[in-house]
């Protein structure tokens, strides 16, 4: 149970996901604002939240602002909220450049507000359990990691996601999850190489990361499948063990014929109701804000993942390996 008054900025897929999660956490006060007032009003109605037609008033009335805006708007929004002295939860990636990211962190520190970047993959139960086992040494020294994340083009490949100038592109927006995960379990990365193929609406990328430990990571990432299809997988190998998991495995409860849940035409992994990672993440963030305890994912983690993602993107553009 949290007593925080939560204000959400945005009305897209992540705003909806977070609204649902905050509702599950039974927050006493929930409101949202978006420049698209109509969508915001519909969403607010669905989830029993208030609607504000003015961002500044929303920020004034809440304890924490949950920024669910497209990436290119993060910098401006974080600066505004920090100036207003409110704590911030902000969607990943933190920003479009490490410079912007560091400026956001600096502003929050100056203003004395806390900043949590929503790197939600760390709260997915299978990824979390695998990381716990790997970090506890159950696999021995990590040697080779395989991470997969392939879905369909968001909004048919025509939205801001498809514009690298607004989203950072697929590597910065989506591969970032698995880059952060690889950094988390296998440590710093020294060299990357990547290939990226595009059609008018699709993007498909593969990257190889070389960690300073000598471990290597393969990441497959795409907005490439047909609508409704989203697949993820992990395969972690150490000199003492192996962990395999794939979203192709049957879930704990199956309704056949099955259909993939779609929120706002953006691909999101199927989640189990008992362990919704979005809810668990926001519960963790709220708990840290109320108790003053440190976040599990720091702003430095967010910048580090972005830095590697930008190197991967640079490699994909240049066709050269890039040192990090």
């Amino acid at each position, binding site marked *: 149970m949290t007593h925080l008054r939560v204000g959400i900025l945005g009305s897209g897929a992540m705003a909806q996901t977070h609204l649902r999660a905050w509702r599950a956490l039974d927050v006493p006060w929930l409101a949202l604002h978006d420049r698209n007032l109509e969508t915001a009003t519909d969403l607010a109605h669905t989830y029993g939240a208030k609607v504000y037609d003015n961002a500044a008033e929303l920020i004034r009335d809440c304890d924490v602002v949950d920024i669910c805006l497209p990436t290119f708007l993060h910098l401006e929004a974080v600066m505004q909220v920090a100036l207003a002295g409110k704590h911030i939860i902000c969607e990943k990636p933190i920003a479009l450049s490490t410079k912007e990211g560091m400026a956001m962190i600096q502003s929050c520190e100056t203003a004395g507000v806390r900043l949590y970047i929503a790197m939600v993959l760390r709260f997915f139960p299978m990824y979390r359990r695998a990381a716990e086992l790997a970090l506890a040494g159950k696999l021995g020294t990590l040697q080779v990691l395989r991470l997969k994340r*392939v879905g369909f083009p968001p909004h048919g490949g025509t939205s801001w996601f498809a514009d690298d100038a607004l989203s950072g592109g697929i590597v910065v927006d989506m591969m970032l999850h698995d880059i952060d995960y690889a950094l988390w379990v296998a440590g710093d990365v020294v060299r990357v*190489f*990547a290939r990226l*193929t595009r059609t008018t609406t699709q993007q498909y990328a593969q990257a190889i990361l070389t960690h300073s430990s000598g471990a*290597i990571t393969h990441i*497959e990432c795409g907005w490439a499948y047909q609508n409704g299809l989203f697949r993820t997988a992990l395969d972690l190998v150490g000199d003492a063990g192996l962990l395999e998991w794939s979203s192709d495995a049957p879930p704990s409860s199956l309704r056949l014929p099955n259909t993939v849940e779609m929120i706002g035409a953006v691909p999101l992994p199927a989640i189990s109701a008992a362990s919704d990672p979005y809810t668990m993440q926001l519960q963790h963030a709220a708990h840290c804000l109320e108790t003053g305890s440190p976040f599990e994912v720091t702003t430095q983690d967010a910048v580090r993942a972005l830095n590697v993602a930008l190197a991967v993107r640079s490699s994909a553009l240049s*066709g050269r390996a890039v040192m990090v």
Partner: protein
Amino acid sequence: MNAPVNAPARRVLKVAILGLAHVHTEGYISILKTLPGVELLGCAERDGIASSRTFEGVKMFSGVTALLEQRPDAVIICSETVFHRELVERAARAGAHILCEKPIATTLEDARIMQDACHTAGVNFMTAFPMRFDITLQHTRQTLQEGSLGAVLGIVGVNHSINPSSHDAWFADPILAGGGAVMDHTVHLTDLYRWFFKTEILEVYAALGHPLGSSVETSGILLVTLENGLHASIDCSWSRPAHYPRWGHLKMEIVCEKGVLVVDPFADHLTLFDTANPAPTWVSFAPDPNRAMLLAFLESVQKHLPPPVTWLDGYRTLQVALSAYTSSQTGQLERITSQEF
């Protein structure tokens, strides 16, 4: 269909196995024993090398010279990779057609000498790429060539196995095998990519894992680019633990504009729990591609046809494997020069 009444009886083909080191040797022997019109003359190691292995009902010769004196029509080279060249030269001089295990050699120079020897002697050289004879992969190739899935965006391939030990330990010997996981597992997927798209590999980037105490790399990930611009990865790692339910797997996902092909040629299996094994094992119920490959090889010998898989297929895939080592050393993309033969 009935054969014409007056058709001449097919000549019995005399087959010999030179070298017994390869993991496939035992399987080849058990298949050859069941093939009609085939006489398995026997097996031999190089001259002066006593074999540490025996196979029931198969004659073991004292050496390759004694076995080649029996004038085999065809030989299968199953030695450690570094000895392929010597055995190929011997077999070619004896006039035997050759099926040679992969990778065909440890160096490009050896591979070229092998080709020259076969050319001079007028015998065929076939590279043993059994996956080309796998029904699932043949269907995959057909689907891709029909083009109904639109442009290919990329391919992810894995050829994982357990770390070789016991009879297979030489696969991890840098002299005998010419390397580790890269030499062992890069060539199959490389050949399949070439075969699917009838094109060569132009560029290779590779990162290899070389754990302490290992004389060769035990893991490797390659990103290769084909002449048609397609990017494909190959994970050649010996990354399955010793008690994995099977030796490993070869899998690929081919991501296309209009759909994704998820291909696992070894998927047809039962899970066996028995008292002989501490962990469950996977038992195949799919047709054995090695059998189809041997049949195709022997048919090409019988009918004086070109081999269904060529020396060049073996050479090009070896080039890719060797380029992976160069790339991992320089940390950069390696471009393959497409020398003509």
